[in-house]
């Protein structure tokens, strides 16, 4: 555990130095522990690949006390048994229409668009954390053969449900937002709905697989 002050009311707790399941497990364990045994002065918890941002009430504690308390939590966090990941399947219509970058991703790797789709479908992904927008899950890791950097100029608007890739990560845009990930398809599922419990389809720690559907299946998908 390494600590760095992020602001006068936030502390970054580093639990690893790389993107991977080992760092993820430690972040998830500490997150779960702090959710199950909440500390009165914690205002917000923001997990990421290998860190947890803890926002606190500065009228109640200072950084030294935050660090000392979390160090005491460290051992219990390590012993925490995590439930086996929930397995989710997300239907995706891969096409030029829904995935305007499909051709370019293929060209960048000297493979065919159908090979890009095949590789995207070839494995299950871990939901490392959620961020950017409500319900936006960072899923990894992509097959190295299709890892592609972000667009240099992000799009002003990406359709809700768009499936994108960026570096070794993949994600589904829950809302029509600006976005710089390379789009290869779209899901008809609503990724985040405030009327639903839980609101987000994907939660931290889930295992996500994609399944290909046709344009007709996409169009016929029942509204949620």
């Amino acid at each position, binding site marked *: 555990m390494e600590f760095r002050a992020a602001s006068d*009311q936030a502390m*970054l707790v580093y639990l690893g130095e790389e993107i991977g399941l080992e760092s993820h497990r430690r972040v998830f364990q500490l997150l779960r522990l702090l959710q199950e045994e909440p500390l009165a002065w914690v205002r917000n918890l923001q997990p*990421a690949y290998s860190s947890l941002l803890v926002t606190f009430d500065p009228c109640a504690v200072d950084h030294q006390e935050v660090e000392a308390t979390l160090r005491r939590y460290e051992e219990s966090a390590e012993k925490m048994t995590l439930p086996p990941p929930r397995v989710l399947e997300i239907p995706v219509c891969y096409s030029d229409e829904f995935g305007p970058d499909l051709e370019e991703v293929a060209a960048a790797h000297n493979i065919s668009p159908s090979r890009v789709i095949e590789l995207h479908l070839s494995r299950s992904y871990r939901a490392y954390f*959620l961020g950017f927008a*409500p319900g936006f899950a960072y899923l990894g890791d992509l097959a190295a053969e299709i890892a592609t950097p972000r667009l240099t100029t992000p799009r002003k608007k990406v359709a809700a449900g768009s499936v994108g890739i960026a570096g070794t990560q993949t994600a589904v845009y*829950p809302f029509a937002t600006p976005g710089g990930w390379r789009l290869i398809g779209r899901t008809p599922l609503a990724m985040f709905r405030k009327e639903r419990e839980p609101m987000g389809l994907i939660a931290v720690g889930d295992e996500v697989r994609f399944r290909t559907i046709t344009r007709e299946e996409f169009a016929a998908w029942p509204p949620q």
Partner: protein
Amino acid sequence: MSSLLVENPGWLTTVQDLGRPGFGALGVSPSGAADPVALQLGNLLVGNAAGAAALEMTLVGGRYLFPEGGVIALVGADFGATLNGQALEMWIPHAVRPGGTLELGLTRAGARCYLCIAGGIQVEQFLGSASTHLLSGLGGFAGRALRKGDVLQFGAPDQSIRRRKLSLRVREALKPRKCLRVTRGPQADWFSESATHDFFATTFRVSEDSDRLGLRLQCSSLALESPREMISEGVSLGAVQVTPSGQPIILFVEQQTAGGYPKIANVIGADLHSVGQLRPRDEITFAHISLEEARALWNAQQRLLNSGEELFA
């Protein structure tokens, strides 16, 4: 319940309260008023709880009709408000007669003016807050900025109007600043000594391309080099991140919750309301203070906001 009719929504008017902290694990940023100090004072002036929902107007005010009347206070930036054609003093509660029209123009100073109404704006809560999150279209009034013809409801006031005014001392202590005090960012030591020196010696200009997500800062003479790649991590409110092009961005109330650019500094909690009053083309500087000083300033600000009757002259 009384109503408020939007005849002209100004440039960008949203329902805001103090936001919804605590849902980072769902990817939900806290959102909330860009100038929470003004929002709280305005609510106290009309006898509301400090965190009641109000209208946040941006740069241009608009026109609002009160068919059943109400008690209001305008706080924050001065948009040259009139009530039924008469100039309206800010930072003081006013009774609006049934059929009264409030009209606001362009900002004269500052970026955001708040219309606080006794009884508070009533909208469906999302994760415990009435605050609008524009990026995802959640919260507030239909998850969006107000439009002409919208009708909003506000509750019955808790008490009859009390003529009161904020004390000059309070107004002075909580005045927005153009020199933002910051603490070191989590990657401050990634920047060279000369880059750090330049950062604090430079006057930055707020770009037109600034909003509730973040304020982009311009400066012709400075290029902060982003030293290396980093793994995305949670970002705190007011973080000053530096993009590969060397442009600093202050992450603000509707910020994305995680990001992969190094942060050189972080605006202190007690100065965040000042960020909410920055307009495009405003010039700002940064001053470094310690975490202890920052916390003392925050605690003093909170004490002042919670000092009850002592706030008023």
